[in-house]
């Protein structure tokens, strides 16, 4: 579904064949249909830049990104816009990615309007469906993002990304801003939707714990390079790279038994 081959990207233009500020270097990664691949790394390691390259918002300086055999960065104009139906993204901060002046229902109808799907009534039905899908109370339909909680905002963002039934979903730290209990429902939701709609999912996070229960495969990124990738079980139980081990040790878990100190 998604193939990232030897991608490098950076900011500030290029000089003498190299990026002025290289952020990611030579990243190769694949996501199959119906597969969730976790991309783990700390802030500043280039995860978000990779997401922007994959979605076509940022142009790589080398390498290619192919979604369903089509090179994303070779498309222009109408073809690109049509292609974008297949790749959707859920951003880190839902508060910033929702238009502040649109109500929830308007925000969810927006992709349908853009792609001229359905008439007023069928759009309204679809919007209600989407709200139900992500567990939003029908009452919040007329509220604006500023009047919603963080969890509700992220649900709206997810519902909007799913409105076009994409084949690839990029999630950039979608649950970082959420409560643990809300996070669990959102992660379940993503799992369910993946099973039903068979989309591939690149799930970007800094939290190995979140990804270990969700992803089929995990790639660990550091300083713009992927240092380790493999099936989730192997990476979390038999990490080979020292950085992966550091991440695992830092991940908060509930194993109270190993805690030396207690009251």
């Amino acid at each position, binding site marked *: 579904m998604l193939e990232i081959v030897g991608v490098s990207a950076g900011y500030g233009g290029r000089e003498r064949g190299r990026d002025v500020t290289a952020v990611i270097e030579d990243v190769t990664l694949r996501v199959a249909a119906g597969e969730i691949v976790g991309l783990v790394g*700390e*802030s500043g390691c280039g995860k978000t830049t990779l997401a*922007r390259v994959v979605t*076509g918002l940022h142009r790589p300086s080398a390498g290619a990104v192919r979604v369903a055999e089509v090179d994303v960065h070779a498309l222009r104009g109408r073809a690109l*816009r*049509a292609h*974008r*139906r297949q790749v*959707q*993204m859920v*951003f880190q901060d839902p508060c*910033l*990615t*929702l*238009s*502040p*002046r649109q109500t929830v229902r308007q925000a969810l109808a*927006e*992709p349908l309007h*853009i792609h001229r799907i359905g008439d007023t009534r069928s759009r309204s039905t679809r919007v209600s469906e989407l709200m139900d899908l992500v*567990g939003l*109370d029908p009452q919040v339909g*007329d509220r604006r993002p500023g009047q919603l*909680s963080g*969890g509700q905002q992220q649900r709206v*963002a997810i519902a*909007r990304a799913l409105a076009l039934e994409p084949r690839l979903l990029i999630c950039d730290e979608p649950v970082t801003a959420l*409560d*643990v*209990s*809300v*996070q*669990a*429902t959102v*992660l*379940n939701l993503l*799992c369910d939707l993946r*099973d039903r709609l068979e989309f591939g999912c690149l799930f970007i996070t*800094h*939290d*190995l*714990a*979140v990804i*270990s*229960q969700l*992803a089929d495969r995990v790639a660990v990124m550091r300083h713009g390079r992927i240092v380790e990738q493999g099936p*989730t*079980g192997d990476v*979390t*139980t038999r990490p080979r790279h020292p950085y992966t081990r550091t*991440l695992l040790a*830092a*991940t*908060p*878990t*509930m194993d*109270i038994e190993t*805690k030396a100190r*207690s*009251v």
Partner: protein
Amino acid sequence: MTGRRGGRAWTRTALVATPLILFAVVGVLAPVIAPADPTVGDLTAGLLPPSPEHPLGTDQLGRDQLSRMLYGARISLTVTAAVLAIALTAGTAIGALAGYLGGWVDRFVSRVIDVVVSLPGMLVALAVIGVRGPGVENLVLALSLWSWAPYARIARARVAGMRSSPHLDALRLLGAGRGRIIGKHLLPPALAPCLVYASTDVGMIVLSVATLSFLGLGVAPPHAEWGQMLIEGRPFLDSAWWLAYPPGVAITAVVFAANLLGERLAAGEERPSILRLVRPRWSLPARAPRPAHAAATTKEPVAPTPPEAARDSSEHDAVLRVRDLSVSYPDGGGRRRVVAGMSYEVRRGRILALVGESGSGKTTAALAPFGLLDPNAAVTGSAVLGTGAGARQLVDLSPGERRRINGHRVGVVFQDSASVLNPLRTIGAHVDEAVRNTGRGGHRAVTRRVTEELLRLAGLPDPAKVAREFPHQLSGGMRQRAQIAIALAGEPELLVADEPTSALDVTVQAQLLVLLARLRDELGMAMVVVSHDLAVVSRLADSVAVVYGGRIVESGPLATVITDPDHPYTRGLLDAVPRPGAAPGTRFRTMPGRAGAGPDETEGCGFASRCPLVATACVSEPPALEAPVPGAPPRVDAHRSACLRHPSRPAEAGERSTGPC
């Protein structure tokens, strides 16, 4: 409810715009309702005072003033509307386009705007009319040419500010084209400040029309026009007041109405600031007792702690003892509680974690004793800091007394270190200030030495260098350490940390948790840590209070609460924590429904609607926070849970701890 409120807002908007609407209607109907022809005079009836025949008197040429006023409205407002429509449309479109496209288009348009804005407007108008001759069309053209630029500037600034915003990226990913992004998502927010400006512009344009008319360059003299009437009436201000006052009042009324209207439109459903001045908000004083109706509808589900129970808890080393803490905010006509009857305490060298979902009231409960809430918040109950002679009641302290506590005896660390620190001051300056506030400073060098010590204590490796740096030069983890250093300046007995690690990477978070634990152990500090993450808390806390819907539903020593949770909500929270080693795709066990309402919105248990073990009694009977096992001492720091299943039904206890939840 919202519909009615929206309706009322619209009624008020219409009310505000009344003068504008009135004159517009009157202007349109002028030929029908005017008693006389405004241009035909009767020289024998000149300068007559108001009378039944001429309600507003006559002017020096004997023309009926009322008719002239009505026709004047027609001309003034038509010209103004035309100018505004052209200037607003052209200005906003040009500005929005320049702001969105950026690059050389933006630079070019910005220069043009600068030039137009700096030109004297009247001169431009005179030049245009000088070339094209007088007349209403040329007047409109001249004034439009002069007044589009500010709109373009406002729209450009607004759009340029939003150009790189993530929500536009999100729209691009949805496949939205340029036209839709500009038209639907950039123009409306850009239009709002333009409308406000337009409202102030109305007065300018009305006056400019009048001035140009007076100079013989606008509306020709026999036709009535407000500004022209004003200027014509000026020589007779002493003898015939009815000439200048009515047009003056009309202009003022129109300008004022337009101002209010613009502000209302811009603010959407929010109350515009100027209206707040006109009609002060009807609110209760912040510390008023709870209104009777709230008290009547509120059952107190948490049984008041028996006084002897409160006393026999180890009072000698409780740094903070909170009893029956309630916080309410004004809501509609009454007040709405967000924290109800919470009791907690934290002892020296211990860390208490308040855990709950966002909106549960955990942060409010943690900050309320220190007066760190919105001024509208009313705090009741008791919160005692310290013991013996140093004990202080924190609720209802005066601001002066509070300053002697906050920063001295209590340090606070907030979640968002980027917004807590002033971006224009160095880290050293921040900590210096805190040190001086607590009286530990002295000469600059002495203060700085204390500062560096504090930064080292907060685990910053090179304090001298960090002190010279600005907040944006530090990583999130280092900023959070700097915040901790500031909080430690007063050598506090108690540190309150609101989600101290939530915005950080796991590795940085782990280091910070180690730091907090070290501070507790080395300095013997008490801490209240607010968090939504039980996993984080389990690395740090000694005791836990689980907060749901503004109440504590379970509290006790960390190990007990986590290994043997009693309340179904606590179990739900524990189930939501990811477990490494689970097979990929394993579903989390989640709680149905949505995070709770306020403490007074349900009759019984607030969690009943989501609870897997709900019984009929739960809906009507509020549970008390009490020991899950009968016979345990009713201490505030012992394991307690607010669930109706115990102790009346102890038989289920065995099944409960192993059964699925």
